């Protein structure tokens, strides 16, 4: 008889139950299976009613983030072997409303993302006929890590502030704002600062640093927030010393 492993999966069926519950499933244990493979096995062969999101199974679409034994993980990149032979607890990401089973509502993140204006802002658009904006490898490197965000939202799940203050704009959105601020083609840092310097902007962050620890793409949102705070502080001091305005 081949080995098995138990998955304790959070269920929530809003039409049937008022509170989430836990359902245990026993699945085959395979060395090369990730947690997502086990969920797919359950859905295919044991219980078609289990709901969760997934798509690429190669760690880039950002769909399959869940809480695995208490930590936010991309389940397509989290192996059963990391936990075996003990049971594995699979729950939805924290700090988001649960729609059904393992599926959370991320609509609020999309609103926050748009708020930080994550696109190139310029006074003058260069005509296409004049070719590309020059950007040296060093200039690319200045924002490259922030551009790696896959919007998986593990950082919101890990962030204690996001749990306490739902209005906090949050790690990924701030990192993406900084991705454009640091881009040599962009002139929109001032416009973005207006949004981020508000109370629910970056000052909400108390620099716990959990966001950076859980990021599967090494984006370092905590670093972005620190950079931003320094820039905001400099702006504030300038405004005090030079009240006639300098930009």
């Amino acid at each position, binding site marked *: 008889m081949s080995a098995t492993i138990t998955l304790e999966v959070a269920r929530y069926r809003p039409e049937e139950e008022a509170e989430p519950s836990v359902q245990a499933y026993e699945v085959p244990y395979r060395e090369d299976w990730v947690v997502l493979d086990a969920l797919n096995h359950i*859905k295919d062969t044991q*219980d078609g*009613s289990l709901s969760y999101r997934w798509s690429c199974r*190669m760690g*880039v679409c950002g769909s399959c983030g869940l809480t695995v034994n208490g930590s936010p993980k991309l389940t397509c990149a989290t192996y059963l072997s990391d936990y075996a032979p003990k049971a594995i607890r699979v729950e939805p990401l924290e700090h988001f409303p649960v729609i059904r089973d393992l599926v959370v509502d991320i609509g609020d993140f*999309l609103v926050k993302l748009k708020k930080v204006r994550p696109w190139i802002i310029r006074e003058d658009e260069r005509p296409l006929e004049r070719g590309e904006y020059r950007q040296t490898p060093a*200039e690319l490197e200045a924002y490259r890590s922030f551009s790696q965000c896959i919007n998986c939202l593990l950082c919101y799940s890990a962030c204690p502030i996001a749990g306490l203050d739902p209005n906090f704009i949050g790690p990924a959105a701030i990192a993406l704002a900084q991705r454009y601020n640091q881009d040599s083609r*962009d002139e929109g840092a001032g416009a973005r600062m207006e949004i981020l310097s508000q109370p629910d902007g970056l000052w909400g962050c108390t620099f716990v640093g959990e966001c950076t620890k859980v990021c599967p793409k090494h984006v370092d949102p905590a670093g972005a927030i620190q950079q931003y705070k320094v820039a905001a502080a400099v702006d504030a001091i300038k405004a005090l010393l030079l009240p006639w305005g300098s930009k």
Partner: protein
Amino acid sequence: MDLVSCDVLVVGGGGAGLRAAIAAAESQPSLRVGVVSKVYPMRSHTVSAEGGAAAVIKPGDTLDAHAYDTISGGDWLSDQDAVEAFVREAPAEMLRLEHWGCPWSREPDGSVAVRPFGGMKAERTWFAADKTGFHLLHTLFQTSLKYECIQRFDEWFVTTLLVDEGRCQGVVAIEIATGRLLTITARAVILCTGGCGRVFPFTTNANIKNGDGMALAYRAGAPLKDMEFVQYHPTGLPFTGILITEAARAEGGWMLNKDGYRYLQDYDLGTPQAKPVLRSMELGPRDRLSQAFVKEQEKGRTLKGPYGDYVHLDVRHLGEALIDRKLPFVRELCRKYAHLDPVREMIPVRPVVHYMMGGVHTDLAGATGLDGLYAAGEVACVSINGANRLGSNSLTECLVFGARAGVAAASFAVEAPPANGTASAQAHDEQRRLESALGARREGEERIVDVRTEMQTIMEESAGIYRVGGVLQDAAARLRGLQERARRLALDDHSLTFNTELTSVLELSFMLDVAETIVHSALRRCESRGSHQRSDFPQRDDERYLAHSLAYRAEAGPPAIQYLPVTVTRWPPGQRVYGR
């Protein structure tokens, strides 16, 4: 049933869909543009594209050279007027992405860098390290947020197109989160739903690639073109099917058989050199490399693994610094999903279903034969890709033809009358169809996984790298039987809230329709061309088959296949020559 209306409705929010939406919004700013997608746009499968996007920009390269590479790569099945438009508009599209912030890799002087790619005679592939699709998609998505006239319907699943008086007038969709049905009327609809790799068992394609748009168009009466042409990419990781980008070979990686021998030299692809040579050896086209794998396998010169035979892709000699700079995702994927470090170990790879050359038949503006219905990207077949697509042409195709379809649909929408009253009547019919189908499922007896797995097995056995008439004939009959079984699928889930079992049933039904068109188109094409290799007809036959297949849905029974001549402008059919 609730009803909303927009002027242009884009189905799918990947590279082609977002480009189409932005083009529509920019060309006719007064229009309301909808984007409906079964996933959040940044989850779209464009995100997985790795190697790059082709466009002529460097001195010494020419549009004609890009066109010739594309046409010869496609074994002369490409429509040459489409290819000429494609190569001409590609550079501006790529520059536009640069202006929108795409983090293209750069030369030391700050200009955009290009890399070589398979089947290309010049270095013309723009790249953002080896996460080009990811960066392209996020750049488009983030840029799309600034257009107030673009309204998104995220996680809405389109079940049917509304067609009346010979014109597409909108869609019916399910809001996945609530199970609510919605009619979205539109003066023009653009399908940008991508491919259908999931009809096969071993594919690089994401779980969402179920041929939705192909089946929607086919059911509405639009023909599917060249569906027999299925691209196997030569370098997928066994078990997961995760793609190891062609850029690994473009940077100098070697394909080795079990004896450590660069076996491509035995298949008329050139002689091994230390440095990569364009259009030669490892930089040959994907169809020829995948076919060479099968021949090596027959000679017993591949390796045996738990997930089938494989060969090695060796990049160790490129060194850690280059790998980290230009192929960081390859290293990340190998470490995470194959538990090896390509800096020190060889990568096991085998051919894997990657891309559909065929799709919804369109003209150069993305228009299908059905008024008001457009298509662009992998779901469509213009055709620039002919019988075999060259690597790095597909992302560019999403941009060029996404933009073209967006502009054309917008100008159509300006002239077109609003949807007529029958749309809501049709929507109610669709509601009844879905409800009765679901009701019947309570007594179902088949599990989704069983029908899906059997379909995939049939497709791999019959429509793989080499095909033969008898097996295809048999597959056609078996797929018919599966269509019957699919009507008796059992559902465990009867909830309205985020019911992904229901969407899986609908996806399976899309895939079965698409699978039938692949098998019947392959059966009827009695020649070998590009990715379509018939063991019983090993030669190309320009006399009979310099033509596109068109699969039409029949009232009952299998699809009807017709043919349409290929458009030849300046490059008469010739021999495909690589490595010499």
